């Protein structure tokens, strides 16, 4: 035996600590490790939201800001307005229209992303393992590149003198450039373009786990391609459909850059309306109330998602 004469190692002496004290130390260390994140996020992310909530119940200052007196005017102004002449109450049509547009465009964007993203994710998931990573990489690249730049790229395509119109007029299909920019359509197109990867990635994650022996079994039992898609594939990847939809819907609802660039300030969404109150509108309490409203809409969507995810989890183990 080599080094048989070697003395046994003597561990460095240390004060003996009992098990309970060790457990206490572990707890303390855990919280010390979490502390910077907790503090930073409370100070610069979560806490300010409470201030916004508070501001929504204050009166508007004359040049922006707030006066420190309680008021429900901000919340009132979200949906209602007082006629300047006879002081009667009316629904604030402009705001209603913006709320409606935000929800409508977000739903349409989500559907468009789903319709296009499903085949795309399926396509990636059915490639060979080596190729799959390449296609996935191609989806991930836009995901991590600047949203403003991608919106800007879309702007160059759909402008009056943009690529699409140049092709259309060049081929003589239309005489005049088609006005696509500054419409609901352009906003939806832009949001579909920028949020598309957010749909594909979770869809792909569920499809990657899809057991194609189940598909084989369905064909064996006389199902058609469409029946296999509807009866086997879609139910099995439904967690991905739900996750992708929520990932697209939420940022669409709060979109600011895309409607600003492609809607040109005429076709506002909630995000732009909020910005307006903190800019030229100078009605901070209204802006704060609108922000809280947007947040509430997002929370509703998230609760719906959690419900759906739980149901899906029960359904598929």
């Amino acid at each position, binding site marked *: *035996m*080599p*080094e*048989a004469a*070697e003395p*046994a*190692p*003597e561990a*460095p002496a*240390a004060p003996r600590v009992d098990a309970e004290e060790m457990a206490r130390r572990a707890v303390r260390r855990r919280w010390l490790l979490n502390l910077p994140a907790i503090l930073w996020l409370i100070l610069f992310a979560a806490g300010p939201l409470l201030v916004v909530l508070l501001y929504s119940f204050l009166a508007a200052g004359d040049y922006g800001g707030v006066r420190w007196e309680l008021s429900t005017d901000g919340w009132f102004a979200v949906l209602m307005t007082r006629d300047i002449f006879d002081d009667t109450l009316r629904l604030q049509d402009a705001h209603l229209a913006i709320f409606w547009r935000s929800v409508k465009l977000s739903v349409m964007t989500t559907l468009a992303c789903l319709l296009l993203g499903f085949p795309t994710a399926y396509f990636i998931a059915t490639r060979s393992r080596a190729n799959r990573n390449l296609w996935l990489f191609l989806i991930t690249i836009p995901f991590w590149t600047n949203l403003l730049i991608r919106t800007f790229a879309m702007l160059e395509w759909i402008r009056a003198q943009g690529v699409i119109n140049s092709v259309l007029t060049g081929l003589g299909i239309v005489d005049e450039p088609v006005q696509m920019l500054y419409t609901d359509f352009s906003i939806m197109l832009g949001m579909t373009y920028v949020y598309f990867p957010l749909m594909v990635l979770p869809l792909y994650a569920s499809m990657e786990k899809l057991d194609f022996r189940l598909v084989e079994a369905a064909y064996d039992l006389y199902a058609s391609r469409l029946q296999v898609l509807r009866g086997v594939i879609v139910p099995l990847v439904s967690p991905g459909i739900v996750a992708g939809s929520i990932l697209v819907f939420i940022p669409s609802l709060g979109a600011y850059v895309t409607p600003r660039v492609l809607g040109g300030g005429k076709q506002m969404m909630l995000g732009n309306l909020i910005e307006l109150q903190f800019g030229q509108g100078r009605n901070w309490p209204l802006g704060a109330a609108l922000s809280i409203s947007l947040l509430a809409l997002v929370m509703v969507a998230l609760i719906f998602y959690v419900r759906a995810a739980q149901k899906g989890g029960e359904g598929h183990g």
Partner: protein
Amino acid sequence: MDQDSISPARAAETPQETPAAQAVPAIDVLNVSKLFGEGQSAVRALDDVSVAIGENAFFTLLGPSGCGKTTLLRLIAGFDHPSAGQILLRGEDISELPPNQRSVNTVFQSYALFPHMTVRQNIGFGPKMLGWDKARIDRTVTDMLALVRMEALADRRTDQISGGQQQRVALARALAPRPKVLLLDEPLSALDYKLRKEMQTELKRLQHETGITFIFVTHDQEEALTMSDRIAVMSAGRILQIGSPREIYLHPRERFVADFIGDTNFLAAEVIEAGGGMARLRLAGGGEAEATVPEGVAATGRVTASVRPEQARLVAPGQGALTGRVAGRVYFGTDTLVTLRLADDSAFTLRVQNSLTDGEPPGEGAEAGIALAPGALQVLRD
């Protein structure tokens, strides 16, 4: 089973160790209990366990999963602390020391080799942490590489070597700091059959060459029987019996031990008379027989006795302790297992060695007598 019954076993155990160990065992587990959880839902993983493990021994903790063997190993290693009782390492209480202050090393079940280090760096890790000087670390690593025959692959990363080689590295890494005791947590379970056989021999050799006490945890009774100097059979957080493989196999004291290790026949019986470690039994299957009574087992009234299949012989009907009718035969090459149905409708299996001269054992439906080898019948504690 009452709590005190373990202690005599330990008392009986210690003197059989090597003379050097008689004074101070390498590891002395004293009345250790371990509870997980709190209050009503607490699980008692170890229940007042005591065992002394001598120096230079290959000691095995054997039992089914959940019996507490791994918990005991973790307590000795220092990854957990006992809820009650003490663990002594060469007479020194280490119960509350963290793992890095105990001269005990572990070979983990799936090896837990550091993936970002080479084989050499893995082996050198312990000595480095102990602050040995570089020359001594290098010498030790070289020796260890030779000991486990891994010199050629010393600079490979650990994910570039096979499972069997990883196993050797894990052994070398744990042995490098020259621990007083080496703990092995089912280290062979991840290997395929052939490699496992090879490593069993290898482990025996390493234990022999290093002279370090090995405490080996397994649920594989065959592995335990072939490798160990001594075995502790565990069940439900208790040690049921400690002894040499031969003692455990031939003289199980408990029904669980007899059942867990090897195949056996259980016979219901009534004690006619008992004394001097022997008892005369009236067997429920018909007939009478002499049985040994292990120390600490009460031989009165109705008891269960056991006998191994290879310690019974087929004889002519009417001869032997028991008579039965052949219910089935299974051919195994070297031998045949014959199952007989006894008078009380219980089954009795015996192993008949196949030979060219004796011809086949009697066929199904035939009546046959069963003779038991002297001393083979054993009264058990239920």
